């Protein structure tokens, strides 16, 4: 089942912050975050493995609450280059390996204006 992302869209001015949420009904082994610009391939941002760790990538960080099967992506002091569609991809926690198969959310469109 597809994870649910919220919000569906967000509009920011440069320098503002945003949070994108990803929620799954399944037990998760990992959560991935990707950014896709129009007409391009998704680009990997970060992966969070179960354990509740938080990761950072420049001014973009994320957390993973494995008890709630939820992850959040934090974008601080947004830049024009942050515009795009953000996807979470979830990997189910199974008895054996899931081979890195991802189920993606429907995406969150982020627009940053000057």
């Amino acid at each position, binding site marked *: 089942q597809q994870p649910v992302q919220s919000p569906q869209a967000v509009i920011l001015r440069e320098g503002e912050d945003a949070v994108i949420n990803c929620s799954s009904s399944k037990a998760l082994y990992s959560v*991935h975050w990707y950014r896709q610009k129009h007409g391009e*391939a998704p*680009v*990997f941002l970060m*992966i969070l*493995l179960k354990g509740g760790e938080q990761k950072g990538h420049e001014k973009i960080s994320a957390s993973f609450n494995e008890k709630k099967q939820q992850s959040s992506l934090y974008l601080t002091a947004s830049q024009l280059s942050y515009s795009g569609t953000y996807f979470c991809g979830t990997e189910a926690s199974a008895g054996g390996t899931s081979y*890195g*198969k*991802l189920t993606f959310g*429907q995406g969150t469109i982020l627009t940053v204006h000057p």
Partner: protein
Amino acid sequence: DAGITQSPRHKVTETGTPVTLRCHQTENHRYMYWYRQDPGHGLRLIHYSYGVKDTDKGEVSDGYSVSRSKTEDFLLTLESATSSQTSVYFCAISGLTSGSYFGPGTRLTVT
């Protein structure tokens, strides 16, 4: 950038014809995937491979087959193309804990 290419990048074909898309990687990754991306559906897994000649179905595998005879190549075949298979197809490779890296995509139009 991960070394992953797809060919062709664009293709227009007629309903009922077979179509093969190719994914080539130079990263020696064991795991490879084919996804399709459609408006309103996001990215959906078609098939995946966990080694040479080891493949399995994803969530939207009907009408598609795959083959992997070498580590670097993963082929996706539409046996008899239908208009519902008009989409953008992405190949991806993964080192599991290092995330997935996507190829540039193939835009397929079935008329």
